[in-house]
């Protein structure tokens, strides 16, 4: 066997950074964690559904039978669950979450959302991935069903954690496209600036992660290919 290359033993700074970022993304979004989060969101929706149904049952029991079958009613429940989950993910502080809930919804809705935000924060604080693309439909048996996807991006405090843990001179700003961020914030009202910033940063991180995956795959392929 030939002498091992020194280069392989000492990865370059760029390689170290790349690996660190890759590890971090993998750590945050392992398949197991995503499966768990999927279960958690389903529990979240089921308890939300019962909560609202019980409210209607207490106020106007005769209305519930019709409501329960309505796709639009089901859709609004799933939509509010998504909203509550996402606000809870986006804001660490309950006060900030409360401000957003009340700024973006009418008071009755906001109150409902706040209850669910507390529930999310109490029971699933570690689930820091946004829900997106919820879709409701009636299946062939007439049952109401829904589907959803995750926004696989690192959330704000995830980034803080990443930067704080990093002992190299890694700076996330070096990796982000500031012009694109500025453009994404153009014309956004101040109360939505943070959400818009998070969204754009998350989008860029997702892109970066895909590039890293590709690079690592290429490296792996190069390593496994026989030396000429």
């Amino acid at each position, binding site marked *: 066997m030939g002498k091992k290359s020194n280069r392989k033993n000492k990865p370059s700074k760029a390689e170290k950074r790349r690996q660190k970022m890759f590890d971090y993304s993998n750590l945050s979004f392992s398949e197991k964690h995503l499966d768990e989060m999927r*279960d958690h969101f*389903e*529990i979240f929706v*089921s*308890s*939300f*559904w*019962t*909560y609202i149904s*019980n*409210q209607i049952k*207490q106020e106007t029991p005769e209305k519930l039978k019709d409501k329960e079958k309505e796709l639009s009613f089901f859709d609004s429940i799933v939509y509010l669950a998504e909203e509550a989950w996402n606000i809870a993910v986006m804001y660490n502080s309950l006060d900030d979450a409360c401000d957003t809930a009340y700024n973006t919804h009418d008071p009755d809705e906001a109150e409902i959302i706040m*209850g*669910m935000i*507390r*529930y999310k924060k*109490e*029971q699933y604080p570690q689930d820091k991935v946004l829900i997106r693309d919820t879709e409701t439909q009636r299946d062939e048996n007439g049952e109401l069903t829904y589907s959803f996807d995750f926004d696989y991006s690192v959330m704000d405090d995830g980034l803080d954690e990443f930067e704080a843990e990093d002992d190299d001179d890694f700076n996330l700003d070096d990796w982000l496209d500031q012009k694109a961020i500025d453009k994404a914030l153009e014309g956004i009202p101040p109360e939505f600036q943070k959400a818009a910033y998070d969204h754009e940063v998350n989008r860029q991180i997702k892109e970066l992660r895909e590039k890293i995956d590709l690079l690592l795959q290429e490296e792996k392929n190069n390593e496994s290919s026989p030396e000429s």
Partner: protein
Amino acid sequence: MKAMTEEHVFQCTGCESECDVHVRVQDGKIVAVEGNDCPTGASYATSQCKMLLNKNDSPAKAK
């Protein structure tokens, strides 16, 4: 293999409704929380059920 499903009922003490919250557990994992009149009920029952599951999961202590 058939999944093992069980249901636990917890009476919430979070408000005056004191609702009975049903928590469905499949293969040791919570899969649904129902019967709550408010989010507090759901949260309470989830916590109680998690505690119960953790207790059942913990290995018997050696003498």
